[in-house]
């Protein structure tokens, strides 16, 4: 795959406005640190990165490199210390908690490593969850959920509970839940990390389809070299900084 540019080239078919492509995710001088006792531990330093619409980008790096933190910031579930982070033109660092929650509901689809399904809800109800925050009626929600589950190949498992599904099937339910609201971006944190090779390939295939057929922008954190091959672009992080593919720091 390609090396990690700070400004990822646009994928084929990406929208242009007056010749310039507006990135769907625009990150400028983003920094984040955590407190550990009295110590301040920097996790991300001065990150600048643009992700064009319709991209499928993989964030790679060793443990502690800050890739999951960067993904969390993009998804609006964590806040940076400094810098600007725009998603679809909106600076999400300025949003209050409640506004951010509404923003996530409308713009972000989540795929977690351990699926994070509600164990007391069946596949249908799990996929329906994000739709409860919309104004859709029961019938519309049903139609959408059935379509989504059909797309991930689980029409016959709608009334199954997570503990009645394999890991791969649970992750497919999670993917259906991620795109059910037609979000702006889909963030996936190690989506194949808990799966066998075959299931992992199925999941990556689904993410590729979401990207190529539905035009969804997918941002994926992964350690998996095979998973990286599904991405259009790869961005490497080391010690909280973007680096070129060979480990050289990007300036």
């Amino acid at each position, binding site marked *: 795959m390609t090396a990690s540019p700070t400004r990822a080239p646009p994928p084929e078919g990406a929208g242009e406005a007056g010749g310039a492509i507006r990135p769907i995710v625009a990150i400028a001088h983003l920094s984040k640190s955590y407190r550990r006792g009295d110590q301040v531990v920097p996790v991300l330093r001065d990150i600048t990165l643009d992700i064009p619409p319709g991209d499928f980008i993989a964030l790679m790096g060793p443990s502690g490199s800050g890739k999951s933190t960067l993904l*969390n910031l993009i*998804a609006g*579930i*964590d806040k940076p210390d400094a810098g600007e982070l725009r998603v679809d033109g909106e600076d999400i660092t300025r949003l209050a*908690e*409640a506004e951010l*929650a*509404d923003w*996530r*509901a*409308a713009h972000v689809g*989540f795929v*977690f490593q351990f699926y*994070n399904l*509600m*164990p*007391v*809800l069946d596949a249908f*109800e799990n996929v*329906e*969850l*994000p739709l*409860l*925050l919309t104004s859709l009626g029961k019938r519309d929600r049903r139609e959408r959920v059935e379509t989504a589950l059909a797309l991930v190949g689980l029409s016959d498992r709608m009334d199954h509970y997570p503990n009645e599904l394999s890991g791969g099937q649970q992750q497919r339910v999670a993917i259906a*839940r991620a795109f059910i609201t037609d979000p702006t971006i889909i963030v996936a944190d190690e989506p194949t990390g808990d799966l066998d090779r075959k299931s992992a390939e199925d999941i990556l295939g689904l993410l590729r389809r979401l990207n190529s057929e539905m035009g969804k922008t997918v941002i994926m954190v992964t350690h998996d070299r095979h998973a990286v091959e599904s991405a259009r672009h790869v961005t490497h992080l080391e010690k909280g900084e973007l680096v070129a593919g060979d480990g050289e720091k990007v300036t």
Partner: protein
Amino acid sequence: MYFKLVFKNIFRHRLRSLLTIVGLVVAILAFGLLQTVVHAWYAGADMASTTRLITRNATSLVFPIPIYYRERIKAVDGVKAVAVSNWFGGIYKDQSFGNFFPQFAVDHDIWFDLYPEFRTRPDELLAWKKDRSGAMVGRQLADQHGFKVGDVIALKGAIFPGTWEFTVRGIFEPRDDTTITRQMYFHWDYLNERMKQLFPKRAEYAGLFIVQIADPGRAAEISRTIDREFKNSLAETLTETEKAFQLGFVAQTETIVMAVRIVSFVVIVIIFAVVANTMAMTARERMAEYATLKALGFGPGFVAGLIGGESVMITVLGGLLGILATFPVAAVFKSLLGSMFPVFQVAPGTVAMQAAAAVGVGVLAGLAPAIRAGRVKIVDGLRYIG
């Protein structure tokens, strides 16, 4: 979906939920029974009338007052009627607690006019009034010992020596469940006659007077007037409302009542700790789920509501079962302790307190975990392994 989530979450750990609910049932039941015991203690005061005053010897209840006081009290403005009442204290069969029941020598001609809460049959009342050694027994007492009209009750006098025989001429019924009918009344004249014969110095005395007044609003004023009437006499009087008089008896055992009351609340505190611990464990285990819901866009209120709602639903379920169990268990208690508590019934106020305790425990026990779940940072919650 909210209620579905709350309801399904309750039964995720069936054994834990079951044990918590069983604990709640026992606690709410125990609370209800102990409150009923406290209520039963005050039964005498509860059935007191606002139109009745009690005049007794100011020195102590054990000292009698002359019978001629009756006419002077009757002459006080606002007094409608005056009746004598004397504690008899006779022993039925033996001195066992099960055979104890109160007996009073009373003014037979007006007694039941003063106590409309006792329902009598006119023919039985007439027969009693005509028979000098006749007795009227209450329904509870009759049922307890199997007394029937025509039976002869033999009592061994403890305060008034000798063997005393009374013929049951009637059985009076309670007006409602709060009326105590575990006592026996007989003619004061009969007692006084025997005293005249055996112990003339003890004749012509009354234990106390029941004073019927027309206007309850004048109770304090009439009481003061009666007591002023006998100021500096050989037997000064103390007049008080019937309720105050009854509460005076309860005050003698106030420490026990207080202990029972405290224990009833301690039971609630204990179950609160149990439920709070259960909810804290539950919330801790589900932190990743709450974080996921927040990531999906659900607000802190929804997430806090899940754990708070679950807590309240568990305690309401346990409380409801506890309240339902209180009635049959109280009935068993009553059958076992009937001689100690003539009125032992679960009052509506007790049920309300049980319900309030259940809901209160649910709200308070779920409060801290709910706030914690609502405030969990998504990135921290997602890392949480319960």
